[in-house]
């Protein structure tokens, strides 16, 4: 199928939930959607048999390093994150990218959640193959996937400290973590 045709179809399917749709490259379409409508959007895609889930990428946006303009842009795009107070605007967000592929076309659903309210609904009921990807971002980014079939400690070793997410930017190494903790306890 032609790329443009695919995208036109996807646009139509996702219209009810689309915050904003962009084409960062000819073969890509990024659709920003609010976290609460993720399941509906994925269901619509799967029911329309639009491609297959290729991967879920996690991204970490630490509040302090992200330019303010970027954070503002996100507020406008999703309305999910309400106008932050000064303190809140420093809080980081986590982004999950759901990549769907059909032929050459890659459709990315982008959802964002805050560090403190990092809940995302599971899509395993619609796409059973998503379970591995969901576990991956739970483990590495600390996104809480609500209702995923298995939410145990998955990726990291059993003695990995609770609440430490290695792919977040704030994580550098376990050794340093101990040093910081040591200081805190002193």
């Amino acid at each position, binding site marked *: 199928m032609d790329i443009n045709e695919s995208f036109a179809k996807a646009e139509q399917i996702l219209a009810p939930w689309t915050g904003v749709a962009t084409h*960062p*490259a000819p*073969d*890509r379409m990024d659709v920003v959607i609010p976290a609460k409508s993720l399941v509906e959007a994925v269901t619509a895609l799967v029911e329309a048999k639009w491609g*297959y*889930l*290729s*991967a879920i*990428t*996690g*991204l*970490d946006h630490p509040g302090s390093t992200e330019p303010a303009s970027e954070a503002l842009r996100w507020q406008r795009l999703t309305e999910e994150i309400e106008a932050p107070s000064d303190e809140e605007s420093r809080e980081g967000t986590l982004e999950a*990218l759901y*990549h769907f*592929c059909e*032929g*050459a076309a*890659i459709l*990315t659903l982008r959802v964002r959640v805050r560090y403190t309210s990092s809940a995302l609904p599971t899509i395993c009921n619609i*796409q*059973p*193959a998503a*379970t*591995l*990807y969901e*576990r*991956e971002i739970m*483990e*590495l980014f600390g996104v809480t996937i609500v209702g995923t*079939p*298995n939410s*145990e*400690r*998955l*990726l*990291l*070793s059993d003695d990995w400290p609770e609440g430490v997410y*290695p*792919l977040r930017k704030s*994580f550098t190494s376990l050794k340093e973590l101990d040093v910081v903790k040591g200081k805190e306890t002193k």
Partner: protein
Amino acid sequence: MNEQVNAPKKFIVPIGPQHPALKEPGHFEFTVDGEIVTGASVRLGYVHRGIEKGCEQRSWIQDIYLLERICGICSHSHATAFVLGVEKLAKVTVPPRAQAIRTLFLELERIHSHFLWLGVAAHEGGFDTLFMYSWRDRETVMDILENLSGNRVNYSANVLGGVKYDVDEKQADEIRKGIDFLEERAHYYLNVVTTDETFLGRTRHIGLMSLEQAVTLDAIGPTARASGLARDVRVDAPYAAYVDFPVKLVTDDRCDLVGRFVVRINELFESYRLIREILDHLPAGDLTTKCPRRIPEGETISRVEAPRGELFYFLKSNGSDKPERVKVRTPSLCNWASVINLAVGHNLADIPMILAGIDPCFSCNDRSVTIRNPGGSQVWSWEELRRYGIEHYK
């Protein structure tokens, strides 16, 4: 009378993390009733290395070599997926000769990987002779790769903006000669795996995965193509030199292990054809073009058809000389679900072959993901899966 008291106890056969069937660490637990498998679960993560995090702390150039070491068998696919992505971000146009040589390496790597797989799969089925012969013949392509790049694995052929190694006429002739020999051998092996009755006894109707199941389970690569699912990034979204040298899609509708053998061997023929074509029409020109050390800000997705299936890279740059995020989704990861689901209902003896059928690569998986499945709640029974499939496609 006693039957209820002696309710059948679960008899679990553990396979791995250290087991002769698995040369790489993974842990499987198969619940068996006699010889029949009634449940399966998997736990990976024994070779988790944190490469994605490591990438964020190294420069773009250093990352090529780190990512190349995700997997020893499809190393060039990883490096190519990465450099293609970075070049897209940097808006660098790579000379056509470099793209063609990259593709040449990709196809040689596919041949090496498929021959390796043929041997491993035969070994799992207790056919050591086929194992030895296919690995012996694989040496031909390994030698070609060594002559081209100086290394048998981890060729390090890619640099940002091109390739390191050129192919001259003398080497091209050597490759052609090797390919001719391998083509003859591939015909022979195709004949063996499709006609040898003892081997067919181990592969025919084993590990059946219908097209519907393949779609539901998100299978990719040769595993999916053996179920008739036409999914191949080289065809769907041509990259590198596949635009100029198009690939014919190879599928099979046998859906079982025989199909997986046939698809992989037929893919070899396609690779031979492609390699000859590339060698005959190698574009002239430079090998490299200048690529900046600091990559402009942006995000990109790069997909490459590795020997095992679609390899997915997501790259994000923040404008510095180090990537902001490198996400790797390896093909084996997509195919695990199929193994776990296909195992149920088979003989214990068939499990190694079904496992081998998807050509699993543990190093690929464990780069960042572990699966643990103790309760079996995630394991779908045959019936559940079918119900799901029926409901899904109502």
